[in-house]
């Protein structure tokens, strides 16, 4: 599965998610189709069970959150259940997609599908610098924490806001240097 072409995996994910999301609003045997497909694909994609369950659980909190609202619909319970199952199946499909397809490949495929270049370069730079900014954030948080002696919420909010503000300034400076470095290597 990991070696399959990213285009196929993306299209398959889209089709599966679309099919699942458009299933009727009460549980029927049709629900078995995506369920079986996904349960078969899970071991094929070699996604660890614990990992998958953990991610599903986290998504659950949130699916149930919105799902509870559906209980107030005239058809109530069947709608709630079907929405729950549908959501989970779709999340599982996306988990399998992200497990088997590094985002790099997704970007390459999007480029082949003539996705706008500005978006592609933004996505590429974003992915390259997410860990860098994450590391800077961690360092700033630790530095702040080492000089914070109050546990008041006001202080925490001020600290976090200062860190985010400082992160923006550093990111802007870094973007400037990146521009210079790109020009230095001939970028027009």
């Amino acid at each position, binding site marked *: 599965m990991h070696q399959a072409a990213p285009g196929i995996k993306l299209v398959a*994910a*889209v089709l599966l*998610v679309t099919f*699942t*999301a*458009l299933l009727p609003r009460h549980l029927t045997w049709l629900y078995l189709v995506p369920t079986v497909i996904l349960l078969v694909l899970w071991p094929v994609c070699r996604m660890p069970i614990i990992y998958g369950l953990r991610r599903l659980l*986290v*998504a659950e*909190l*949130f*699916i149930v959150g*919105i*799902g509870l*609202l*559906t209980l*107030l*619909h*005239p058809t109530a319970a069947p709608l709630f259940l079907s*929405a*729950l*199952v*549908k*959501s989970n199946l*779709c*999340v599982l499909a*996306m988990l399998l997609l*992200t497990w088997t397809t590094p985002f790099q490949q*997704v970007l390459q495929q999007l480029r082949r599908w003539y996705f706008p270049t*500005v*978006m592609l*370069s*933004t*996505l590429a*730079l*974003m*992915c*390259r*610098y*997410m860990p860098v*900014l*994450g590391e800077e*954030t961690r360092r700033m948080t630790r530095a702040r924490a080492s000089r914070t002696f109050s546990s008041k*919420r006001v202080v*925490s*909010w001020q600290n*976090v*806001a*200062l860190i*985010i*503000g400082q*992160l*923006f*300034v550093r*990111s*802007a400076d*870094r*973007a*400037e240097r990146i*521009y210079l470095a*790109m020009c230095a290597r001939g970028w027009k």
Partner: protein
Amino acid sequence: MLLSCEREPAGHNKMHLPDGFLDAKTALLSSGVAAAGVGLALRQVGASLEPRRMPMLGLGAAFVFAAQMLNFPIAGGTSGHLVGGVLIAILLGPNAAILVMTCVLMVQCLMFADGGLMALGANVFNMGLVNVCGGYFVFRLLQSVFRMGQQRSAVFAAAFAGWFGTVLASIFCAGELALSNTVPWSIALPAMANVHMIIGLGEGLATGLILLAVLRARPELVAVQQAPRLRFGSGAIGYGLLICLGLAVFVAPFACPWPDGLEAFGRRLGLPARSISAPLADYHFPLVGSPIAATAIAGAVGTLLAFVAAYALARVLVPILGPSKKDASAGH
């Protein structure tokens, strides 16, 4: 997995729709409007953004992503997280902000399986377009109307705009859920709007605080400082039209208080008559009776509270010591 940074999904963001709650027509409509909005933003960015500022789009997206991970402690063990749509709109300008938020949502969906794939269009429309444009518009409006010294009015406007953008986006989200016939409007609107009127306070407060931090450190980095007076160029008109279209499709069919007119409108849109007026007729609210009145009152009260809170925040955080050095040098 090849996740470069493990993070917990955006469960904190109650507007981030997963798959399975929107029906085909809503997903298609919202994706269409979202694509149009992103297309417009791309055109604006292509025309007006200098090459020097191109890397800032990517870094800005990484920044929003990193900022969304930080905890704003609320109560007990719970904490809130910044969405950042209005903040990045103020910092980078609305066109860049739309692209940035779209990329953030795409990465959340396609790299972290966070947020639905079919719902991506709706999420981009709500959090990338409505939140950004609505918040930015209100920000510029307030900033130009309330002149309290540049930093103070910026913080006040940012705080209220952050709240407003959140609430506005939640209303559209409720509309999408209602149009999909997943949740009746009379439940979706109060649930979404009231919850987000509270969550929005946090977003507004955070937006104001962060903007103040940036203004104090490097005011020249804030794009909006360089932008001329709010004027309605083709971009603004385009976004305005798209949001009005969204209003017409996702909100108006339900928000119209006259059931007869509602049915007529719905018939014109081709929606089955029963699905629209039935939910409104069947639900009553305690004390107020009509769900519409209850929502309207809640909305008005919430807006007023947020307005006052934003104003108080700005007054408290930015002391007036005569015009500050930055105000003087900016030549306001």
